[in-house]
C-alpha cells in the first residue's frame, strides 16, 4: 500500500502538467496584453518539469489505484513523446496567433491538457480510464482545431472533427461495453485473463464485435483508413501548429492505447484481430499514398502522408506475435513513432515558416523556396527523405525495424505492399521538392524564420538524422520501453 505522497510522486508528470495549464490560464488573465509573450515559455517550463518527473519514473513498475493506472517504461516512453511533441509545437506556435485570435493563453493551456491526456492514456489500464482519457484528448482537440474563430476553415474543420470524433468514440464505447459484458470487468488485465480462460468454448463473436468497434475508435485516433476522412480536412483547417501536434502527438496516443488494449486485454484473439489490422494497414497506406498525389495544399498532402505512415506503423501491430516477435515489433513501433515525431514536426515547422511569410499553404507557393530560404529548403528535403524512408534518416530505421519483424514472421506480402507504397510516396514528395529546387519563385523576397522556429527546425533536423546515424541508443531505448 502506497501512501499519498508516494502516489503524488508517481503521478507527478500528470499533475505538473495540470498545474502548468492552470498557471498559464491564471497568468493569461492577470499578466495583461504586453506580457502575453511570456505564456509559451511558462508552458515550456511546466513541460520541462514534467519531463524531469517522468524521467525519474523510468525504472518504476507500479500499478496504481488497483490496477487502474500503470506506470511502466511503456507509459514513460509515451510521456516523453507527449512532452517532446507539445514542447516543440509550443515553440513552433510562438507568434503564429498574432492577429488571428484574441485568445492566446488558452491555446497553451489547452495544449498542456492535451499533453496530460496523452500521458494518462499511455498509463490507462482500465476501460473507464481509457475512455475518459481518450475523451479529454478528443474534446481538447476539437476545441484547438476550431480555435481560430475568425477563420471559417478552422471552425468548419473543428465541427467536422467533432462530428466524426463523437461518432467514433460512441462506437468505441459500445465496443467497450460489450467487452465489459463479456468479462464482467473493466480492468484490461482481468479482461485478458477472463477471455483467455473462456476462449476455448462458446462464442467468439462477442469479443470480435468488440474488437471491431474498438478498432473504429482507435483507428480514428491514429487516422487509419477507412476512419481517416477527418484528417485531411482537420489538418487543413486547424491552426498549423496544432495540425502538427495532431499528426504526431494524437497519433502516438492512439497507438499507445491500441497497443495497451490489444496486447493486454485481447492477446488471445490475435488470430482474429491480425486479419483486421492487416487489412486496415494495407488499406491505410495505399489509400493515403494514392490520394496524397492529387493534393494541392501542403497541409492536406501531409495529412494523407501521415495517414499512410499510420498504415506502416500498423504493420508492426500485425506482426506482433507473443512467441516470435513480441518485443521487437512493439519496439519497432515505438522507435518509428519517435523518429516520425521529429520528422513530421520538422516538416510542419517548415510549413509554418512558409505560411507565416506567404499566408497560404498551396504547394505552388513552394516554388523556388531554395532561393528564398535555402535552409528551409534543405530542411524540407531531409524531412521528406525521412518520410519516404530513405537513409540516413530516422523513419528509414523505423521502417527497417518494422519490416524486420514482418520478415521474421514471413509476412512478405505486407513488406512488398509497403515497399510499393514507398515508391508511390516518392512521387508526391518529389512533386513538392521539384518545385522547391527547380521552379522559379513567384516572389523573390527571402523568407525570414523566427528564432523559436529556428530552434524547432534545428532540433527536429538533428534528431531526424541523429535517430538514424546514432540509431543504437534509440533502438535500445525502444526495446527497453517495449514492456507491456
Amino acid at each position: 500500500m502506497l501512501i499519498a505522497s508516494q502516489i503524488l510522486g508517481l503521478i507527478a508528470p500528470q499533475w505538473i502538467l495540470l498545474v502548468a495549464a492552470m498557471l498559464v490560464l491564471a497568468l493569461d488573465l492577470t499578466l495583461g496584453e504586453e506580457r502575453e509573450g511570456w505564456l509559451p515559455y511558462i508552458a515550456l517550463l511546466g513541460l520541462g518539469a514534467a519531463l524531469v518527473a517522468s524521467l525519474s519514473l523510468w525504472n518504476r513498475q507500479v500499478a496504481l489505484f488497483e490496477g487502474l493506472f500503470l506506470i511502466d517504461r511503456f507509459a514513460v516512453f509515451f510521456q516523453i513523446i507527449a512532452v517532446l511533441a507539445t514542447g516543440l509545437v509550443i515553440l513552433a506556435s510562438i507568434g503564429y496567433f498574432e492577429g488571428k485570435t484574441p485568445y492566446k493563453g488558452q491555446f497553451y493551456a489547452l495544449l498542456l491538457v492535451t499533453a496530460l491526456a496523452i500521458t494518462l492514456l499511455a498509463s490507462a489500464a482500465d476501460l473507464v480510464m481509457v475512455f475518459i482519457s481518450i475523451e479529454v484528448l478528443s474534446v481538447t482537440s476539437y476545441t484547438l482545431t476550431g480555435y481560430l474563430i475568425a477563420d471559417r476553415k478552422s471552425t468548419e474543420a473543428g465541427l467536422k472533427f467533432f462530428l466524426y470524433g463523437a461518432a467514433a468514440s460512441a462506437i468505441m464505447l459500445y465496443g467497450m461495453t460489450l467487452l465489459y459484458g463479456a468479462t464482467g470487468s473493466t480492468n484490461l488485465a482481468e479482461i485478458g485473463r477472463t477471455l483467455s480462460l473462456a476462449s476455448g468454448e462458446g462464442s467468439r463473436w462477442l469479443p470480435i464485435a468488440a474488437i471491431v468497434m474498438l478498432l473504429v475508435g482507435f483507428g480514428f485516433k491514429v487516422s487509419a483508413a477507412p476512419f481517416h476522412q477527418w484528417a485531411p480536412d482537420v489538418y487543413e483547417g486547424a491552426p498549423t501548429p496544432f495540425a502538427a501536434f495532431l499528426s504526431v502527438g494524437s497519433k502516438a496516443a492512439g497507438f499507445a492505447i491500441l497497443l495497451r488494449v490489444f496486447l493486454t486485454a485481447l492477446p488471445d484473439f490475435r488470430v482474429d484481430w491480425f486479419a483486421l489490422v492487416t487489412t486496415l494497414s494495407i488499406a491505410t497506406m495505399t489509400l493515403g499514398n494514392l490520394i496524397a498525389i492529387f493534393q494541392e495544399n501542403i497541409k492536406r498532402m501531409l495529412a494523407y502522408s501521415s495517414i499512410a505512415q499510420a498504415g506502416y506503423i500498423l504493420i508492426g501491430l500485425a506482426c506482433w506475435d507473443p512467441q516470435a516477435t513480441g518485443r521487437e515489433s512493439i519496439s519497432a513501433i515505438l522507435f518509428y513513432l519517435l523518429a516520425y515525431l521529429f520528422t513530421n514536426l520538422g516538416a510542419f515547422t517548415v510549413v509554418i515558416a512558409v505560411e507565416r511569410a506567404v499566408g497560404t499553404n498551396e504547394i505552388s507557393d513552394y516554388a523556388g523556396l531554395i532561393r528564398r530560404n535555402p535552409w528551409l529548403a534543405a530542411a524540407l528535403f531531409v524531412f521528406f527523405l525521412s518520410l519516404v524512408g530513405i537513409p540516413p534518416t530516422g523513419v528509414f530505421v523505423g521502417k527497417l525495424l518494422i519490416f524486420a519483424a514482418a520478415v521474421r514472421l514471413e509476412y512478405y506480402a505486407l513488406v512488398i505492399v509497403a515497399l510499393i507504397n514507398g515508391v508511390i510516396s516518392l512521387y508526391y514528395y518529389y512533386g513538392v521538392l521539384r518545385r522547391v529546387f527547380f521552379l522559379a519563385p513567384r516572389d523573390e523576397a527571402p523568407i525570414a524564420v523566427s528564432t523559436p522556429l529556428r530552434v524547432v527546425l534545428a532540433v527536429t533536423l538533428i534528431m531526424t538524422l541523429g535517430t538514424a546515424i546514432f540509431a543504437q541508443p534509440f533502438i535500445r531505448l525502444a526495446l527497453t520501453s517495449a514492456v507491456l
Partner: protein
Amino acid sequence: MGISHVLFILFSVLILGGGVMVVTRRNLVQAAGALILTLFGVAGLYVLLEAGFLAAVQILIYIGAIAILIIFAVMLTRRLADEQEPGLNSQWAWALGTAVMALAILVIVIQGTWPLAGGVVGNAPPLTGDSTSRLGVALLSPEQYAFPFEVASVLLLSAMLGAIVIAREKRH
C-alpha cells in the same frame, strides 16, 4: 409477465419510438423533443435495473442540461427555410443499409453465450445493500475510481474553457 415486463415494454417503445423520431423528424426541435422521450425511457430502464441514482442523474444531466442545450442550439442555428428542406441527406438509403446490417450483426452477437465470464443468463444476482452509497464510495476512494473522477473534472474544465473560447462573441 410481471409488472416489470410491462414497464419494460412501455419504456422500450418510448426509447425506440423516440429514437426513430429523432433520426427522421425534419423539424429539429421536434426531434429534440423526441430525444427527450428516449432519454426518459432510458431513465425508466435504469429504474427497472435498480439504478435509481443513475435514473435521476440521467434526467438531471441528460434532459435538464444536454437536451436543453441541444434545443437551445437548434433555436440559435435555425433558419425558417429549414423546415422545407429535407432532413436526410442523399445517402440515407446506404445509411439505412449500414444500420440494419449493424443491427443484424449485433443481434447475432447478443444471441451468443452471455457472458463468457460466468454464464449468467437467467435471473440477476440479488442486490444487497445500498448501491447508491456504494457508488459514492467507489467514485471517491483512491483504491477505486477517484482518479478517473478527477480526470473527468479536468475534462469538464477543458470543455468549458473550449466552449467559451469558441462560442464567445468575437472581439478583436
